[in-house]
């Protein structure tokens, strides 16, 4: 989980180095090579996956001919669609839940001083480094103990639980350079607390909220380990469903649905970027 942490949208203020490697020099060559391989490692597998989703062969080994049959199969396979719908429902609810709780928590921790604050802060970081499998098992035992039957509800609760720390971290970073004087100015001008929050605080925090929401959404969407433990009857998410298919082989249907999910993620990132850009101007 921890390796996924990227604080999206949090632009770093690092200035470009003054000395730029000269074209053709050794360091230029090294930089180009490293960059090339970095992008290749990141994107070649995804490109292969997308390409093979248009392959007519059933096994992913050889290219036969171009075909849209796997996309047709996806849209006529009710079980894949149900699993995808479950994933989206859980991701949306988990995002809303974790962003609201995480943001409020970050604001509280940022603004109030109390004696055990450091300890609480550490506890909030902890779920980021706890192995997912430990979290999955403990959640399962917890739900079994309070005899809450496993399903969408347990999935959403679990996903909120593991997304929240990431939201919290993002929002703490955002709040660290929050200019408190703007809120004070609004209140000096007669705005009550709610108006200040709505008109001043929230818009200023919006870039952070959007990046943390994206982060939470992505984490929830591709979570397997925790979902695997807490999923119940009729609530399998897409990753859990794909895992269940393994014994009969991964069909290009899976490639097709993955491509569609990728498309969705790209659209989301673009939308988020557009919103942020508009707010900056």
């Amino acid at each position: 989980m921890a390796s996924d942490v990227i604080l999206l949208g949090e632009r770093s203020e690092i200035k470009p180095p003054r000395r730029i490697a000269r074209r053709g020099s050794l360091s230029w060559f090294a930089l180009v090579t490293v960059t090339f391989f970095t992008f290749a490692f990141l994107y070649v597998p995804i490109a292969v996956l997308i390409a093979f989703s248009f392959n007519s062969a059933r096994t992913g080994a050889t290219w036969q001919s171009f075909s849209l049959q796997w996309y047709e199969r996806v849209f006529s396979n009710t079980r894949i669609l149900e699993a995808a719908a479950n994933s989206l429902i859980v991701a949306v609810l988990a995002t809303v839940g974790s962003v609201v709780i995480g943001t409020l928590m970050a604001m509280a921790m940022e603004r109030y001083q109390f004696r055990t604050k450091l300890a609480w802060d550490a506890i909030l970081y902890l779920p980021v480094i706890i192995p997912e499998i430990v979290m999955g098992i403990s959640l399962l035992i917890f739900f079994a103990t309070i005899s809450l039957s496993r399903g969408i509800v347990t999935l959403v609760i679990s996903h909120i639980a593991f997304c929240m720390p990431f939201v919290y971290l993002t929002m703490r970073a955002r709040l660290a350079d929050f200019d408190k004087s703007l809120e004070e100015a609004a209140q000096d001008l007669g705005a009550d607390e709610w108006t200040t929050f709505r008109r001043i605080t929230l818009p200023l925090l919006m870039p952070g909220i959007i990046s943390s929401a994206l982060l939470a959404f992505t984490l929830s969407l591709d979570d397997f380990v925790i979902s695997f433990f807490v999923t119940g009857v009729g609530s399998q998410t897409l990753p859990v469903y794909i895992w269940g298919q393994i014994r009969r082989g991964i069909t290009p249907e899976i490639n097709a649905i993955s491509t569609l999910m990728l498309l969705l993620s790209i659209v989301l990132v673009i939308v988020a970027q557009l919103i942020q850009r508009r707010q900056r101007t």
Partner: protein
Amino acid sequence: MNRRKFLRLGLGLTGSTALMAACGAPAPSQPQEAQAPTTSPSAEALAKELSWYNWGSYVADSVLEKFKAEFGVTVKVDVYSSNEEMEAKFKAGGNPGYDLITPSDYMVSKMVAAGMIEKLNFDRIPNFKNIDDSHKKLYFDPTNEYSVAYNWGCTGFAFDKTKLPEPIANWKQVTNWPEALRGKLGMLDDVRELLAVGLRVLGYSGNATDPAEINAARDLLIDLKRRANYALTDSPNAATNIVAGDIFGTQIYTSDAVTARRENANVVYVIPGDVSTVWQDNLCVPKGAPSQYTAEVFIDFMCRPEIAAENANEVGLGTPNAVALKQGLIAPELAEDKAIYPDVAALGNALEFLKKGDPQVDELYQRAFDEIKTA
């Protein structure tokens, strides 16, 4: 150890006796069905939904739609990829709400012993008579009270006929893999399937419990690994590899071999005559099922010849439904396929189930397997 084993056995027995007592009494709401089992069951006793925890890609959607059209019951399917995964789901926190599961042979006996499976009321499953006798009363359910055969198949050997000097017919040839084709052999990354090959070539049972026999099989497979440098893969990947030509021959499940053959006409699949593994997946009702009655109506529906055939034609695995086969309802390219429906009479005793579940024996096998992997 012995006492613990005895205790466990005792607990298992008490568990299943309690279960028998619980199931022995007919459900009060359906006395009329018990009297006239052949008439279609009344809809009021059926649940609205049936939850089935099943292998992935293991049932035709069209069949489920037909069931809904006729009985008004929506069948919800969740999928798993191994017996142990399914078992774990039930052990951790009890039955999450499934009416129906599809355990393989050895898992049926394991779960029955653990009191996790309900006895079936066969009065409600009259179509059970369509199942071939060779798929009834097997070792894992000797009195056939808990399970109904659903699909079956073998573990055999697939090879590319253009790349091997001679066709493979038995495991002995596989273990004599030519050194010239080093790195072109695949074996299943499965503790029991792999060791079974070694055991059978040496003339032992794939279910050997004697450490000396298991170790002999281990040594044979380590020797083969040094000579042939075989790759250990799971069965779907074995299919991918042989289609791509990365390997020339591999141990493989029937289902994946059929896929591989469809993609590459040079691939031949055989069930080696010197004893191969046979497996059977079964419909069972787990303890704590919300509606055992609905599950039984569904099992009966699945045993209808035309439904079993429609399902088998889509899934592409062997159906145990003798009537479906006899009436020619199975697509000829499947029915005449000796890989899917091997000539059991000709193979005679050359097919065996792999019996798992004894922790001590499993440990022996696991250790041997680990030693092969690290050799």
